[in-house]
């Protein structure tokens, strides 16, 4: 009986997926929702059909998934992945069902799944992943989950249910590293070697300044950003674990990317990353750790890191006539701060715009904008032709910029995305870049307009 229900759910879900594609809807979670309705036990049926690699954590999931995909390609492994950030249970199910034949057999051996932290709790014990990568824990959409520690515990619970999974964890994040506590799993840590990124002291506003075990304030011998760094607790001795895979040198770092040294067990890699930003070095390390776990040769790991496609809306440069449009998703203070420090590496003039929505997928609370260091931008405001604000919460963003020291006459508001794109682009001069920093649903809306106007490829492909 269950086999029949499973096959029926499989067929209907496939038909709906095709129908949605025909009407050119990017709907990536509806088929999964339907499959769950038709057959609530479908997850159990799906597990065991694929070798699963899951990627979770608050920041960098999508980029890390892209790098992981590149690793699998280098390993010659065929896999299915949830490409467009459909990372809740429904999206994961849509992806897996989509990779089944009509008779319910998997068409590829592996599934690479970017997974939301709350969904991870239930999905991991069911899907029994071979490998789990956890990127980091920063405050993110707290109105949905309550607290950062709730998010951490969701992942911890998920891991408890799958003791034979190999874990790839961020050593520099005291919260993430604590997932290795009291679990039988094999763990490989990645991180930045002490002092590679020469910044000292954490900012006051960090997410985890106090020891997760004994609540004493950590000491840091070096900090890369946020609460990431070489922490140690002076009271109980909890400290940043030894990392199996470390970035031991950053020889160049600019708005185009970076050149880094990675030291691992029996390997020394020199890699040119074409994605800028310090946070992407962490994502690359997580990806390299996956490559190492899969047994890839060093030269294949290098190849995978050097050529992978940038994630959905994460940092894509779109040529528009003689100008560039760069869309960078923003969703929480740490990620946003990293984007701002990337903007500061820009030479010459540009236009900077913000598209802030407060729908459920963005987080209905936009107070976090006050935890972002927009003050950094006030020093470069003379190089910025205009600061545009758009989206449902455009006014809030305008207030934030004003209090960050941006002159009021430089802050221009246009709530309609379509008009805002026109105005922001026409304010951008030849060969310059117009940066658009949208929240998630604002990005979807803006992509839709860009697709119509400039024929961008559909994102679910």
């Amino acid at each position, binding site marked *: 009986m269950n086999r029949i229900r499973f096959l029926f759910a499989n067929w209907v879900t496939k038909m709906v997926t095709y129908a949605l594609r025909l009407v050119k809807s990017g709907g990536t979670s509806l088929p999964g929702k339907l499959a769950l309705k038709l057959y609530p036990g479908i997850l159990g049926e799906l597990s065991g059909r694929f070798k699963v690699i899951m990627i979770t954590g608050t920041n960098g999931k999508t980029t890390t998934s892209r790098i992981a995909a590149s690793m699998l390609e280098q390993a010659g492994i065929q896999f299915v992945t949830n490409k467009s950030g459909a990372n809740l249970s429904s999206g994961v199910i849509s992806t897996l069902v989509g990779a089944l034949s009509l008779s319910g057999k998997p068409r590829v051996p592996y599934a690479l799944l970017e997974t939301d932290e709350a969904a991870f709790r239930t999905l991991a014990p069911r899907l029994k992943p071979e490998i789990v990568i956890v990127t980091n824990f920063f405050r993110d959409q707290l109105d949905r989950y309550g607290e950062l520690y709730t998010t951490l515990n969701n992942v911890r619970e998920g891991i408890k249910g799958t003791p034979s999974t190999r874990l790839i964890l961020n050593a520099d994040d005291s919260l993430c590293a604590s997932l290795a506590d009291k679990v039988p799993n094999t763990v490989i840590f990645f991180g930045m070697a002490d002092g590679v990124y020469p910044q000292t002291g954490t900012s006051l506003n960090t997410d985890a300044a106090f020891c997760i075990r004994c609540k004493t304030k950590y000491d840091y011998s070096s900090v890369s950003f946020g609460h990431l760094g070489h922490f140690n607790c002076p009271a109980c001795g909890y400290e940043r674990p030894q990392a199996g895979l470390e970035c031991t040198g950053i020889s160049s770092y600019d708005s185009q990317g970076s050149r880094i040294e990675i030291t691992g067990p029996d390997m020394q890699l020199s890699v040119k990353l074409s994605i800028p930003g310090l946070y992407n070095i962490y994502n690359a390390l997580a990806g390299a750790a996956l490559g190492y776990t899969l047994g890839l040769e060093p030269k294949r790991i290098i190849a995978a890191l050097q050529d992978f496609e940038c994630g959905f809306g994460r940092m894509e440069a779109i040529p528009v006539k003689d100008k560039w449009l760069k869309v960078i998703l923003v969703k929480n203070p740490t990620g946003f701060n990293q984007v701002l420090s990337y903007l500061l590496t820009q030479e010459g003039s540009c236009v900077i715009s913000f598209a802030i929505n407060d729908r459920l997928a963005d987080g209905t609370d936009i107070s976090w904008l006050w935890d972002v260091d927009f003050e950094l931008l006030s020093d470069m405001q003379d190089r910025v032709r205009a600061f545009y604000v758009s989206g449902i919460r455009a006014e809030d963003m*305008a207030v934030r910029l004003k209090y960050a020291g941006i002159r009021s006459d430089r802050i221009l508001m246009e709530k309609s995305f379509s008009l805002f794109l026109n105005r922001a682009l026409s304010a951008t001069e030849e060969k310059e870049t117009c940066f658009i920093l949208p929240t998630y649903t604002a990005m979807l809306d803006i992509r839709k307009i860009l697709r119509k106007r400039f024929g961008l490829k559909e994102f679910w492909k």
Partner: protein
Amino acid sequence: MFEIKICHLYPDLLNLYGDRGNIIALTKRCQWRGIQVSYHSISLGDTFDPEAYDIVFMGGGQDYEQGIIQDDLMGEKRKRIIEAVEGGKVFLAICGGFQLLGKYYRTHDGKEIECIGALNLWTHGGSKRLIGNLVFACDFLKNKNFDGLVVGFENHSGKTYLGPEVEPLGKVSKGFGNNGEDGFEGARYKNTFCSYSHGSLLPKNPALTDHLITQALKRKYKDFVALQSLDDSIEAMARESLIKRFSA
């Protein structure tokens, strides 16, 4: 020249949801008027001398972090805070800070955690989080040019109740407020102002910000009359767009 000294209590622990936006708003609105401002942080192990400051701010924290401050807060600092509140010092306390100024917090499973007790109010942990946009009317801000409406965002599971000496900060027109039952939001006692509206409470509500600055300057300087007005058109736009959106 006037000067305002702002004290931020436990900024490294109570810093949830953009609470520092309140400090930024107080600072900027003083600076724009040529009032000198200084910022001081007081955390674990530091001595807190309220007389050294004009405005004291306490934000909210996650349960984990609020647990860390308990012992430190309930020692010498507790006594100093009670005296300062009674003496009419200007305090702004948000969310967790609001709850901590009260008498106790009773958790959902019945455990009673003693709090500072500077204000006659108390909090009962609820099973459901009260989350969403908040609009409330503050009579003390109302005048012929201003409707007294304040906008914010709340996110709390504790339900707070006020004793007879404590006035609510405002009356809820959209959202839950203190407990989702009596229609009140926040608390006001002498010059202490409490609210569940976290993060960007002051930036979008310059009338409230200016009220706090005015109270602090009045206490400190005999020759202070009133604040000069500022161009608040961007703030007004943000506030009014939310009022409009949630009154429909």
